[in-house]
C-alpha cells in the first residue's frame, strides 16, 4: 500500500522544505518514497505543490489525488482540496471550516520554536499524527539533519514537530491505516543529483553553461561539487559561448559539458554542428520544458526530441539518451560521456523538469571517481593526422600540447585537418564521419521490457514516461489486462532491426509521450520500426500519472 501527501502553497512559503523534510524522514524510516514537484515561474507567491508518495513497495509514478493535503495558504486550499481522496485529510495553516483541519503552523512555530521558518516542521509533525507514526522518528531524523546547525536548532525543531503532532490530535485528527516500513534503501536522490554526481565521477572537469530552468540544478550541483572533484565551472555570457567553450575544452583534452533547456539549446545548434564537423565529444545536458519559445518555464514536457535529433545544419552523427529513472540518470550520464568520447561526436542527454525534480530513495549510487576513457593517443608524433580515414570512421585522437600538431577545421578538410575544396576528399570525409553511425547503432541501449511478455498490446515509453507507464502496466494487470511495455532510454539512433524484433507482431501499439504531436512515434515510423500506432499524449506542462495512462489505455 502507499499514500500520497501533498504540500501546497506560495513560492517562498516553504513548500519545498516541508516536502524534502518528509521525504527524508520517511526514507530514513524505511519506506519507499517518491516525490514530485509542480511550481510556477516566480520567486514568491503563486501556487506550488510538492507530492510525497510513500509505501511498502517501490514506486514509479506520482498519483493524481492526495491522501493528505497540507495547504499553506487559501489559494492552495481552494484549488487543491477537490483533489483529495475521499476520506483524506486536509490541513490548513490557519482557521478552516470542517471538514478541513485548521492548524496554525506558522503561529505554532513562532510560539514553539521562535521563528516562522519552522512552520514546516510543525506541519510535518501534524502529518505524522495523521499517519499514526511516532513523531519521535521525525524528531530523530531532524536531530541528524540539523546537527550542524547546533543543538538549539535541533531542540527547537523537535519541539515544533511534537507540537504539530499534538495540535493535530487536539484538532481531532485520527490516525489512518498507513503503510508499514519495509527497510527500503535510505538514500534519496533527485534526477538532478544523479546526473550531476555521475558527471563529476566520470571526469567532467569543465562545465560552461548559461542558467536556464530546468537545467540549472545540474549546473549548480556541479558548481557545488567543483572543489571536491576539481571542476572548473564557468557561467558563460550566453549559450553560444557555452557550447563553443565546451568545444574548445574538449579540443584541449578535457571532458566537458554544458547544461541547458530548449531555448538555450536552440542557440547551440551551430556549435553542435561544429562538434559534428570537428569530431569533438561535446556533451549536452538538455532538460526539457514546454515550448515554443519561453512556453511554461518551470513545467515539464518532451517536446524537443525531434529537434534534438535534427539540430544543427549539415549531416553528422550523434547519440541521444533519455533516462527514465534516477538510476538511468546516473548510468546514462556516464554512458553519454563515454559514447561522446568513443565516437568523437556530440551526445545529448535529454531530461525534463519532472525527471530532474523527481526524488526517490534507491540503493546508494557508487561514488567512486573513475574518469572515463578519453581515448587520447599520447605521443602521436609529427606525422599525426587528426582525421585519418579508418574503417570505423573514428580517427585516433590527439590533443594539443604534446608531440603532434592537432589541426581542426570547420570547413571540409583533409586528413591532416587543413581546409580543402577537393571534392573527392569531401566525399571521403562525409563517409568517414557518417560511418561512425554504424558503431553507434551497434552500441544502442536496447529497449527495456516490462510486463506480460508477448502480450497483444504493447506500450512504448521513452525518457521520463517510463515510471508512469510502468505503473500503468501494474495497474492494468491488477485489473486483469495484460500489456507489455517497451522502454527506450536511448532515442537516437534507432536500431530498426532490434526494435522490429522487440515489437514483433502486436494487435495494438501505443506510444506514450509528453508532447502534442507524437514525436517518438514519428521517429519509429520513419525508421520503419513500427507501423500504425495509437498515441497517448499530454502537453499541459504536467507529467503523466500511472493511473492516467491505465485509464487511457482502457478507454
Amino acid at each position, binding site marked *: 500500500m502507499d499514500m500520497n501527501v501533498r504540500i501546497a502553497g506560495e513560492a517562498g512559503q516553504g513548500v519545498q522544505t516541508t516536502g524534502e523534510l518528509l521525504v527524508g524522514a520517511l526514507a530514513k524510516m524505511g519506506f519507499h518514497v517518491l516525490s514530485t514537484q509542480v511550481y510556477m515561474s516566480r520567486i514568491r507567491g503563486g501556487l506550488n505543490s510538492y507530492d510525497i508518495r510513500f509505501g511498502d513497495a517501490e514506486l514509479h509514478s506520482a498519483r493524481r489525488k492526495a491522501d493528505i493535503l497540507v495547504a499553506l495558504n487559501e489559494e492552495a486550499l481552494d484549488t487543491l482540496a477537490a483533489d483529495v481522496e475521499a476520506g483524506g485529510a486536509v490541513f490548513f495553516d490557519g482557521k478552516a471550516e470542517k471538514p478541513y483541519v485548521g492548524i496554525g503552523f506558522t503561529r505554532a512555530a513562532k510560539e514553539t520554536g521562535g521563528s516562522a521558518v519552522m512552520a514546516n516542521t510543525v506541519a510535518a509533525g501534524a502529518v505524522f499524527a495523521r499517519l499514526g507514526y511516532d513523531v519521535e522518528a521525525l524528531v530523530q531524523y531532524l536531530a541528524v539533519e540539523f546537527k550542524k546547525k547546533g543543538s538549539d536548532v535541533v531542540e527547537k525543531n523537535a519541539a515544533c514537530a511534537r507540537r504539530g503532532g499534538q495540535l493535530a490530535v487536539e484538532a481531532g485528527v485520527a490516525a489512518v491505516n498507513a503503510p508499514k516500513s519495509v527497510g527500503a534503501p535510505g538514500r534519496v536522490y533527485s534526477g538532478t543529483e544523479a546526473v550531476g554526481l555521475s558527471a563529476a565521477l566520470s571526469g567532467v572537469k569543465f562545465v560552461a553553461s548559461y542558467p536556464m530552468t530546468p537545467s540549472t540544478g545540474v549546473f549548480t550541483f556541479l558548481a557545488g561539487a567543483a572543489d571536491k572533484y576539481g571542476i572548473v565551472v564557468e557561467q558563460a555570457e550566453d549559450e*553560444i559561448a557555452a557550447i563553443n567553450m565546451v*568545444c574548445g575544452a574538449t579540443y*584541449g583534452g578535457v571532458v566537458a559539458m554544458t547544461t541547458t533547456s530548449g531555448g538555450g539549446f536552440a542557440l547551440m545548434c551551430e556549435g553542435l554542428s561544429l562538434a559534428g564537423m570537428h569530431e569533438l565529444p561535446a556533451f549536452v545536458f538538455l532538460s526539457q520544458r514546454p515550448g515554443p519559445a519561453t512556453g511554461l518555464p518551470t513545467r515539464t514536457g518532451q517536446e524537443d526530441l525531434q529537434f534534438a535529433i535534427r539540430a544543427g545544419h549539415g549531416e553528422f552523427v550523434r547519440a541521444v539518451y533519455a533516462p527514465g529513472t534516477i538510476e538511468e540518470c546516473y548510468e546514462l550520464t556516464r554512458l553519454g560521456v563515454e559514447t561522446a568520447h568513443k565516437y568523437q561526436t556530440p551526445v545529448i542527454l535529454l531530461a525534463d523538469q519532472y525527471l530532474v525534480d523527481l526524488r526517490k530513495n534507491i540503493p546508494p549510487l557508487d561514488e567512486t571517481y573513475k574518469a572515463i576513457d578519453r581515448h587520447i593517443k599520447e605521443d602521436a608524433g609529427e606525422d599525426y593526422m587528426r582525421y585519418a580515414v579508418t574503417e570505423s570512421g573514428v580517427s585516433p585522437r590527439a590533443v594539443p600540447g*604534446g608531440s603532434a*600538431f592537432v589541426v581542426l577545421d570547420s570547413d571540409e578538410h583533409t586528413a591532416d585537418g587543413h581546409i580543402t575544396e577537393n571534392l573527392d576528399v569531401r566525399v571521403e570525409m562525409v563517409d568517414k564521419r557518417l560511418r561512425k553511425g554504424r558503431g553507434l547503432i551497434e552500441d544502442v541501449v536496447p529497449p527495456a521490457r516490462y510486463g506480460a511478455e508477448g502480450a497483444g498490446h504493447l506500450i512504448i515509453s521513452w525518457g521520463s514516461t517510463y515510471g508512469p507507464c510502468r505503473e500503468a502496466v501494474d495497474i492494468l494487470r491488477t485489473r486483469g489486462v495484460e500489456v507489455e511495455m517497451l522502454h527506450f532510454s536511448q532515442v537516437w539512433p534507432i536500431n530498426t532491426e532490434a526494435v522490429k524484433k522487440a515489437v514483433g507482431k502486436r494487435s495494438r501499439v501505443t506510444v506514450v509521450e509528453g508532447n502534442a504531436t507524437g514525436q517518438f512515434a514519428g521517429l519509429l515510423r520513419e525508421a520503419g520500426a513500427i507501423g500504425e500506432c495509437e498515441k497517448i499524449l499530454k502537453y499541459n506542462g504536467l507529467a503523466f500519472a500511472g493511473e492516467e495512462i491505465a485509464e487511457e489505455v482502457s478507454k
Partner: protein
Amino acid sequence: MNKIPSDMDIAWCPGCGNYSILETFDKAIEQTGIDRKKLALVSGIGQAAKFPHYTKANVFNGLHGRALPAATGLKIANHELSVVITSGDGDMYGEGGNHFLHAIRRNIGVKVFVHDNQVYGLTKGQASPTSDLGFVTKVQTHGVVSVPVNPLAVAIVEDASFVARSFAGDKEHLLAMMVAALENQGGFTLLDILQPCISFNRTNTLKWYKDRVKKIDESHDPYNREAAIAMSLKWGDEIPIGIIYRSRRESFEAKTSMLAKGTLVSQYKGAAV
C-alpha cells in the same frame, strides 16, 4: 617547422595585407621563442580566420564569431598553451561582439589579433562594424549610417589587460606589437591590426592608412586609463598605433584555484579524486 604545409595554397588575394601579418607573425614566434607545439591558433571564419592554416601550430578553426569562447575553453583546459586568436573585424566585433565584451571581463589569457580591414572580405565587401561612416557597398548602398564600433575604447573601459593597435603596412611596428602582445602575461590581450583589403576596401587603402598612422609617443603611459581612453578615441586624420592601454589585473587562469595545481587536462594523469 614554421613553414606552411607545402601543398597548402594560400587563398588570399595577391597584395592582401594579410601576407605581411603572416610573415611578421612567424618572426614574432621566432623572436619570442614560443614552442609551436605549445602554440594553438584559434580562429573563426573570414579571410583572417584562414590564417592558422598558413603557419605551423595547433589549430582550431571554428565558427564565424566564436573564436573567443572556443579559445577560452581551450585555455582553461590547458593554460600552458599559448592561445592566439586570428580574427577579422566582422568575426570579432560583429558576430562575436558579445564574447568580446565578456571575455574581457573574464580577463582570460588569450591573445586576440584582429586583422581589421574595416570590411567583410570573405563574403565580398559588405560593411563591417569598423567601416567608416558613409562607406558604400552593395548592401549599404547609401553608405554606412552606424558609427563604427570602437573596440579599443570598449576594451579599455572594460579594463582589458593589454590593448594595442598596429598596422600591416609597418612590419617593424607590427613585430614589436606582436612580441609585446605575446609576452603579456596579464590576461586578455587585444591587438587590432589595420589591414588593407585591396579587393573590397578602396577607401581605407594602404596609402590611406600610411598617411594617417602615427606611432604613439613614448611619453604615453599605458597604465593611465584616462589617457588611454582619450588616445583610443582618436581616429581620422591621425590614427595612433602602439600600446594604448595596460592593466594590472590578474588573469582568469591565475584567479582560478582549480588551475593552481597544474593544467586541467593534466589532472587526469594523477590519482583519482
